[in-house]
């Protein structure tokens, strides 16, 4: 198969970027999109053109590192997958493919298709954990957790933190990412003590990082490689309201407990 790639090139965070056009020739339809880029890069290198920088690591759809927008779709045309799991057979021979980085203000471009997503780490630092001391945990089967509850927690916990939700959102809002972490921890007994503080902390960190706010277009759900449902955002909002109300009554950092 043959393709024409229009790729966003940008030397560094301060430089302005532009699209460049490259041909990808004799591509095996079973190659992944990233393997195709490897081939193109070796060719560019030989021709003295700087290879295209892009982020990737596991190449099995779980690390959340890969992050390309293909023809306007974060993670490309395939539903419920990451870019590294997009195969060339999902395109037509001769297609023109536009390749861009995540377009989110809070994820500055570092080079070409590589962006800085450390804002997500800072959001987690604002409350996306359980404060348990190492080595002093109670016996695991001491508190049974119903199968259904564990499964629901897993469904939310499966978020890979890639940032596609923000990239798909017209406001650049990563609310789905925050909602997933909150749903994961707040739906388990272990997450209860910090329940309210977690929501307030993470949502405020999101604002502080300069992300936009959620206007419920559900574009995030449509592109999420792990199919995290939009409903979790509704739950997040409810939890946020309850925690804010409680904080208003007990303002000394006691927003935990009975929210929601």
């Amino acid at each position, binding site marked *: 198969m043959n393709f024409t790639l229009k790729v966003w090139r940008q030397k560094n965070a301060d430089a302005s970027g532009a699209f460049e056009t490259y041909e990808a020739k004799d591509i095996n339809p079973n190659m992944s999109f990233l393997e195709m880029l490897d*081939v193109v890069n070796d060719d560019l290198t030989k021709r003295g053109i700087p290879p295209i920088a892009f982020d990737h690591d*596991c190449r099995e759809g779980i690390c959340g590192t890969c992050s390309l927008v293909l023809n306007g779709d974060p993670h490309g045309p395939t539903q419920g997958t990451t870019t590294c799991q997009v195969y060339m057979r999902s395109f037509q021979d001769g297609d023109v493919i536009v390749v861009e980085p995540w377009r989110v203000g809070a994820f500055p471009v570092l080079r070409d298709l590589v962006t800085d997503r450390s804002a997500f780490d800072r959001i987690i630092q604002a409350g996306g954990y359980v404060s348990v001391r190492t080595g002093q945990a109670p016996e*695991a089967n001491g508190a049974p957790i119903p199968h259904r509850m564990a499964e629901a927690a897993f469904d939310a916990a499966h978020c890979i933190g890639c940032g596609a939700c923000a990239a798909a959102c017209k406001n650049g809002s990563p609310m789905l990412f925050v909602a997933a972490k909150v749903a994961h921890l707040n739906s388990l007994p272990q997450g209860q003590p910090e329940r309210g503080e977690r929501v307030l902390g993470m949502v405020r960190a999101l604002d502080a990082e300069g992300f936009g706010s959620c206007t419920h277009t559900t574009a995030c759900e449509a592109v999420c490689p792990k199919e995290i449902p939009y409903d979790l955002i509704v739950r997040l909002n409810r939890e946020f309201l309850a925690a804010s109300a409680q904080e208003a009554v007990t303002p000394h950092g006691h927003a935990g407990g009975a929210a929601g």
Partner: protein
Amino acid sequence: MSAILNPRVPEGPLAEKWTRRKNEMKLVAPNNKRKYKVLIVGTGLGGASAAASLAEMGYEVESFCFQDSPRRAHSIAAQGGINAAKNYQNDGDSVYRLFYDTVKGGDFRSREANVYRLAQVSTQIIDQCVAQGVPFAREYGGMLANRSFGGAQVSRTFYARGATGQQLLLGAYQALSRQIAAGRIKLHERTEMVDLVLEDGKAKGIIVRDLVTGELTAHAGDAVVLATGGYGNVFYLSTYARGSNATAIWRAYKRGAALANPCFTQIHPTCIPVTGDYQSKLTLMSESLRNDGRMWVPKKQHDSRPPAQIPEDERDYFMERMYPSYGNLAPRDIASRAAKRVCDEGRGVGPNGLGVYLDFADVVKRIGEEGVREKYANLFQMYNEITHEDAYKAPMRIYPAIHYTMGGLWVDYQLMSNVPGLFVVGEANFSDHGANRLGASALMQGLADGYFVLPYTLGDYLAGEKPGSRPKADAASFQTAHKESAARIERLLSIGGKKPVSEFHRELGKILWHYCGMARNDAGLRKALELIPQLRAEFWRDALVPGTGAELNQSLEKANRIADFLELGELLCRDALTRAESCGCHFREEFQEEGECKRNDADYAHVAAWTYNGEGQEPTRNVEPLTYENIKLATRSYK
């Protein structure tokens, strides 16, 4: 025993060694803890759990990883599960049994005391992770569920669907994040360690490269912990994340740390077969699939009928035939070799005959497609994405692939290398798996090291170092190392050759897979030892590394890692050549009995740990004898 390898195993009965050692260890006073700085390289299960624990104890911690976020470490990809001797299933499991299975699984080439401790703390790991909110699978009544994994006859594996590593790593990452927020850990992401710095023979710092700006900086600490994962990418095609590399341990080796058993490489039987030359990685299908999937090939050679058209009596369920008591659940090296054997006989399936079937027809009949979906949904989906085939309807095709490196830096019982102050945890060390790692034991070891062992043993070391005595990062030793790193990068950039570095990597991988893969022999290894230096010379003559050192330069990152692989690959073959026996994953064709490993305990019941003697010099092979006080050295049989 070699002069430089003192394993420091505590005296006394096996079951009491760890408690005894913990009671003997020196403590650091609480108000002194913050005066010590620990540099931890790696944020996978080993590194993240170690960083979180040490910071919480009060030490100042700096944490480094080359990915853009600690949550993306290779550990995230682990699928199947983590072992622990909880005996929740009441099937007779115990600390002793987990210990026994692990030593036997490693073909009696691991250190007894370490493995026993691993089995002991395994139960605490599960408690810790559940308390962090890791959503392990549960029974309907709310109790934790278990499944079984290769090499064990009990169900002791805890799992979170097919994403156990992800959930465990997120737990450790969240604990790490909490300490970052509290100001007790300073995180350096997109930062790669390129050298280790010693002062008076002790590890006191590292040189790192900022992968965005290219800047090299020196960092000083009172101790250095390497948690940098495995080096399986030396084979090019493997189940590892593309970034996994050997640089940190290799540079430590060049500074004097001993590298143990480099040739012990685990080959995993259930991976999606290679289909083309362009392929950049191999995808693992979790071993847990062997709980329900049955491995078979046609009895006839080159039988190209679709699987559904091959009647039952023309199928060879080779695992069940050859290993009746473990069947499809025999350990990985055994299953991998069995698959290789039937393919070598011309009975392999798929386009190039390098594949066997893993068939779920029976379990679909038993519990329905829905039931199977609940257990393995994401694995079946992944298989479908990659191969475009539906494994609910037709059997999966699988083939062995490089998956885990049991070798690594040599450490003593305290997890300290022979370089004082240099600690090594997780896959980067050699310690617990012997010649073969059983499933679900790497996650266990990573977390055991980081949450439950290192926090004690590192304190014991630091208690002997004067608080506030660490060197400044501009001391002479740091400046020298800094200059050497800069010169190396300059050298890579100025080769000015014609061949992209990935081509060297692919060629190295082919040499290693061919001559030092599932089966090795004297002649092949000698051949590889000729080919690798030639390839290395060509690399330094003809590699094409574009760009500069002062920018985000992924070609340079790759070149830097491949240069190390080209040296490590040679040591791997040298190690395989000197170990004139077969054990676990190390199958020397000259030493076999009916196709199974023939160990030589009289001459090789030891760890081989290599030390560097300078460029162009042969390294020294040091030996740590392995003594088994509690287990009789027995032939490892899974029949």
